[in-house]
Every structure is written in C-alpha cells, then in structure tokens.
C-alpha cells in the first residue's frame, strides 16, 4: 500500500517535471456528472471510473494538441436538483469546455436547459429517448435509446412467431420510457400487448403482477428494468412455473444479473451492447479490438469487470477527445465537430451523428444474447 502510494507520488512528480508539461498549453477542463452514489450508482460508478481512466490515458499519450485534459467530476446521486447545482458549478465555477453525463434520464433532462443556455456541449450517458428527440443543438448522447433496444427485442419475438406478449416494467424513468416504447412499437411488429404491469424498484415480490399477466395468457413476457428488480421478476416467473419465454432489457446486461437471478436466469433473452460478449464476437467485428482494450485497461486499474454503462462514458470521452482536436477550446467548433462525427467506432456501436440525429446509433448496436449455463450466449 505504502509502496503503491510512493510510486504514485514519484510518478506524479515525474509527470509534473516532464517537458511536455513545462511547455504546456492551458489545460482543457472537461466536466463529468455521474450518479456515482444513490439508486443509480450501478450506472454512475463505472462511468465515473471510466472517465477518470480515459482522461489519464489521453494525458499519458500527450493530451490533445498538447493540451492536457482535466476532468472535474461531480456526483448527482441521481437527484435532478443536485445535477442542476453540479452543472452550474461546472459551467460557471470550473468553466469547463464540455460536460459528460449525467447517468440517468431525469438528471439529464434537468440540466439540458442550462447547457443550452450556456451553449456548452453535453454528451449524456442516459438512455431516455426524450434527451435527443427532439434534437437540441448542444445535447448528444452515447447510450443506445430504448427505442433501439425495444426494436431489437421485438424483432426476435416476431421471428419466433409470437403474437401476444405481456410486459412488466419498473416504476422509474427507465421502466417508464421502456414501457412507452414497448406499447408504441408493438403494432409495428404485429404484436399485441395483452397485459402491462409495473413494479416498484425496491419491491420484494412481483408474483401478484405476474399472476395477472399469466391470466391474460401471453406467449412471452418482456420485463423492462434495472437491477435488482428484474432478478426478482425472473425468480418469480420460475416460481409461478410460467413456461413462456422471458425477455429482459439491456438495463440488466451485466454479470451481476446472472449472479442475482441464479438458476432463474437460465433461458432469459436480452438485448445488450457488444461489450458484454466481447469474447464471443467474430474476429472481423470492428468493435472487438476496442472493447478488448477497454476491458484490459479497466481491469488493470479497477480490478472489476466492465459494463455497458462504463462503455457509454468510454465513448463519450473518446468522441469528445476527437471533437476537441483542432478546436482550440472553441465550444462552437467542438459542437460542430461532434455533429459531423461519422463512422466513429466505439464500445457501444458505430456513431454517425448528424443535425437530425444526436444519438447516432443504429439497431446493430445491439446483439441478442441468451443466458445459458450461467453465462451469455450470442444468438444468431
């Protein structure tokens, strides 16, 4: 421990003395707002760590056009009011060039007006469709919209010849946005939602809702939520001996879900970013190399597994770094560079931003996986 600390100190001193810094141009300050504690910490925590790691890495490689990056990160705790005070701090006190985050849809929507007013690029890591539709000039996002996730799930259901489905969604912004998409897109795939139920994020039991769904006799169930609720749903589905396919959302696409649901996870099908199944991807997949590198770096630094959520921040930092190049710290230039970004291959998918699309992802950003033998299996 002591040794490690000394090494860090020595390294820091060396870094300060290195000629690059002595001749340094002013640092580029970039802000981060993540819900690193609180209910959505499973999103914010890996995002924050990833951002810190990426900034370190970019600086070690000489920064951007000789400018070092400095990350100023605040915790929103998933609370819109805290996100607002954080965004004001970043804009007016820290005077950052751009902001990455927040992690959740409500916190993002809460700060959108402030970044628009201050004319500052924001790259959100939240899933909600409302963030980029309608398009706001200064707001981008790297997380796949639930629009795409629902489309991926429905495609799979349709291919199986299923017509009637029941849905069960968590009563928070993630579940609600998912529910709206599930209901809105069902007719496009020739599906009928026979029963729509919801459960509380902290519910201990969901058998009542599932019983109601069961009585409507659907051919498949789609559950939309983030850990731990969907694991409870998975367990309850097994307990009620519901012998129909259970689909989950990308919100539970992490090894934690398999651990939580245990045996009940078997046979569950869900959409996920490719990050979860890096090892299973074919060699010619353009994202494979990027994902592997990210994974190795992250594991070396934090000794934990990567998640798709950290991937959103990974892409956001990379996109921003690309946009910062040659911008000279001009926010308008950064924004324009972001908007015209094309064929940027990231951890989440290939980004093609345009004036009409500030998310820039295609449905191919998702792959469908099935849980078999306690691990993921790529479908198709």
């Amino acid at each position: 421990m002591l040794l490690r600390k000394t090494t860090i100190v020595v390294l820091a001193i060396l870094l300060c003395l290195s000629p690059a810094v002595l001749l340094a141009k002013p640092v580029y300050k970039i802000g981060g707002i993540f819900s690193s504690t609180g209910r959505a910490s499973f999103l914010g925590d890996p995002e924050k760590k990833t951002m810190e790691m990426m900034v370190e890495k970019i600086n070690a490689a000489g920064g951007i056009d000789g400018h070092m990056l400095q990350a100023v990160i605040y915790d929103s705790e998933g609370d819109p009011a805290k996100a607002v005070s954080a965004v004001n701090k970043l804009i007016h006190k820290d005077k950052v060039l751009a902001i990455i985050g927040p992690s959740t849809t409500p916190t993002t929507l809460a700060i959108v007006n402030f970044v628009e007013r201050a004319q500052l690029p924001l790259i959100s890591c939240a899933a909600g469709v409302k963030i980029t539709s309608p398009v706001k000039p200064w707001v981008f996002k790297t997380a796949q919209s639930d629009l795409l996730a629902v489309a991926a799930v429905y495609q799979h259901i349709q291919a199986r010849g299923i017509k009637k489905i029941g849905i069960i969604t968590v009563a928070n912004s993630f579940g609600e946005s998912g529910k709206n998409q599930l209901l809105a897109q069902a007719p496009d795939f020739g599906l009928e939602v026979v029963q729509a139920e919801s459960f509380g994020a902290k519910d201990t039991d969901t058998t009542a809702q599932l019983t109601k769904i069961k009585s409507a006799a659907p051919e498949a169930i789609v559950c939309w939520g983030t850990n731990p609720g969907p694991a409870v749903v998975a367990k309850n589905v097994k307990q009620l001996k519901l012998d129909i396919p259970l689909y989950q959302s990308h919100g539970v696409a992490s090894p934690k879900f398999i651990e939580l649901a245990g045996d009940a996870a078997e046979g569950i099908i869900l959409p996920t970013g490719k990050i979860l199944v890096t090892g299973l991807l074919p060699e010619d997949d353009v994202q494979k190399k990027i994902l592997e590198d990210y994974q190795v770096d992250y594991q070396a630094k934090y000794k934990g597994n990567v998640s798709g959520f950290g991937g959103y921040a990974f892409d956001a930092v990379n996109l921003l770094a690309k946009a910062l190049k040659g911008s000279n710290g001009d926010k308008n230039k950064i924004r324009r560079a972001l908007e015209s970004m094309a064929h940027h291959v990231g951890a989440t998918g290939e980004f093609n931003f345009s004036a009409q699309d500030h998310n820039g992802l295609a449905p191919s950003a998702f792959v469908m996986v099935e849980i078999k033998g306690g691990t993921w299996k790529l479908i198709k």
Partner: protein
Amino acid sequence: MQEIIQYLFSGITTGAIYAVIAVGLSMLYSSTELINFAHGEFVMLGAMAIVTLWVHMALPLPLAFAGAVALGCCMGLLFERLAIRTARTPQPIVLVIITVGASIFLRGVAMIVWGKDPFSVPAFSRHDSIEIAGAALLPQSIWIVGAAVLLAGGIHFFLKKTLTGKAMVACAVNKKAAWLTGIPSEKMGILAFAVSTGSGAVAGIFIAPITMSSYDMGTMLGLKGFCAAMIGGLGSLWGAFAGGILLGVLESLGAGLISSGLKDAIAFILLLLILYICPGGLFSAKEAKRF
C-alpha cells in the same frame, strides 16, 4: 379463483415481512414510547450480514443467523447508548430527527462496507414451490410466516409472562414510578432497543432469499412497517402482526385487481383511512394521543 389464491399467497408472504418489521417497531414503542425511523436500516443490516456470513464466509446457517441477529442487537445497543440516551432533551420530535439521522448514517456505512451492488441469497431450504389449488407457494414464504408468528409470539410471551418483560412495560407506562419500585429503567430501555433492532435483523435475514439485498433496501420496508404498525395500532404486538398481514394482502390484491402502479399508494391510503376513522388502529383499544 386460482389467481385470487395466488394473490393471497403473495400477499401473505409480503405481509409477513411487514409484520415482522411492524412487530419490532411496535415492541419498541410499547416499551419506550419511541418510534425508530432507522428500523428499516436494521432490517437491511440483518440482510447484509447474512450475505457476508452465510454466502461469502460460508458459515453454517444457524451460526450465520445468530451472528447477524447479534450484529443487529449490538448496533441497536450502541445506537441507544450513543445517540438516544445522550440526547439533551428527549422530546419526540428531537428523537425522531435523531433516528432519521441514524438511518442516513447507517445507510452510508453500509454503502462503504458492502458497496453499492445488490446481493442475492439462496433459499434456506432447496425445495420447489409447492402447488396448492393451482397457485404456487414458496418454501421461503412458509419460513417467513413461521418466523413472524414465532417472533410475535416470543415477544408477546416475553412482555407478558417474564419479570423482565413486565418491568419493561412498566417503564413505558411510567418511567419514574417504575424506577421507584426498583426497576432499572435505563437497562430496560437498552434491552428494549436491542430486542427491537434484533428482531429487525431477523426480518432482514428471512427476506434476503426472496428478494435482493442492497444498502438502500431498508427505507421503503421501514415505511411499510410503520404503516402496518399504525394500522394495527401502535404498541399492540398482535395488532402490528395483523396489520402487516392485512397490508400485504391488500397490496397484493390491489396490484392484481386494480393497478400495480398504484400498489404503493394502497398502503398509504389505507393508513390515512385508518388514521381518520379509528386513529388508535384496528386492533388497539388505546386512543391516539399526543407525544
């Protein structure tokens, strides 16, 4: 029909959880006239302790169980000694805020100790769900209901039949008079706290297998526990027990027959109705009174 039975089974399971929590709260109230807003956090401590002791350290279940309960009791003891006893003016509002502070504090500590991720605990007995009239009943549900009955019965026996328990009730009725008759009222307060938080930990241990445990699981459970205790009548053990079961069943029926989105509202609407119509609770003769 089959659905109704299933709703009842689910309701009784969740209801039993609420009942255990409510019994702990009610017991503390009947012996110290205090409402512990940190009670949900002790439930969380119990659940997290069983995760560490049983799942991670692989201790035998009875030992892990005892360890988790002991942890709950000890934390309750410390809490009483350090925070409640030291309060300069033990007015209810002050004590309520102290317990709210303690709940935030305990949540913070748990977040540091166990991290932010949820954990899962295997069921105590590995059986398939039992089928009765087409409805599935979990073995763990039977465990929970059994625990609730045992706990309520045990505390009832303790308060009504043992000398220590009677002394504890005496302290609640009139502290000074109890002290005059030679009851060590301070010790009784501590004991009441330890038993109450210990029972909270028991609730946590039993629900850990049917749900997911995380550092922030306690708040909502604690609130529902209050509702149950209020519905049954504060200070009445069997009232709290019945209130818990009633609340669970109504929630489950409400989720099934009305709307699952409004499920949480049912508990609170019921609470308001009870408060407006018979504020003493359904099963208590006592009148609602001032602090």
